[in-house]
């Protein structure tokens, strides 16, 4: 399935720093919430053909390289 790669038209300020449920073809925001569990409990009652995304702030330049260490 061809998916919409340009999310600039569907992701708005209100979605930033929140989880969004996108339609499988990524053309629509089905719902959004600060908490993924609350969002998925709500949206998966109506639609299971979706994919989740956490939206970065639009005024943020991404730079988040990570390494990890165990306690």
């Amino acid at each position: 399935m061809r998916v919409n790669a340009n999310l600039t038209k569907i992701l708005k300020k209100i979605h930033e720093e929140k989880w969004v449920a996108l339609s499988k073809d990524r053309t629509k925001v089905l719902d959004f919430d600060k908490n993924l569990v609350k969002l998925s409990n709500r949206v998966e009652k109506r639609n299971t053909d979706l994919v989740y995304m956490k939206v970065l702030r639009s005024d943020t330049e991404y730079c988040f390289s990570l390494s990890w260490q165990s306690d």
Partner: protein
Amino acid sequence: MAKRLKWQEYDYTIQVGPGNSWVYRPIIEIRVSQKGTPRQVPVLAMIDSGTDGTVLDANIAERLGIDPAHCRKVKLGGIGSVEGFLSTVHLSLPDLKIGMDIPIVFAHNLPMEGLLGQRHFFQRFKVRFEKDINKFYLSAV
């Protein structure tokens, strides 16, 4: 004769960035599940060669029913520092029809949903970036 690789083509995902510029990110769909349970979380994640392992937001572990109290705690450092916990889960790439059980760090308050890094992801997939045409390609090793 060298094995001919089968490449899966992707468009870079475009989002609005600083100053209303367009930012292009190499993002793919993955599905995460806990071994032995039917629940799957379909989520987007970014391919990030600067990340050592594979890191997902802790909200995904919560959705899968993973209890952090039963997981090894880890610290993530780099630019910024966050805390998380380690759990082995099943990660699959529906486009390539490939799945693998790998240890993933679930980090609290990650700015995005997930990062697919050097360990496990880059070890198992060849990644070809063609930024000049805003496409990237994946092939299983």
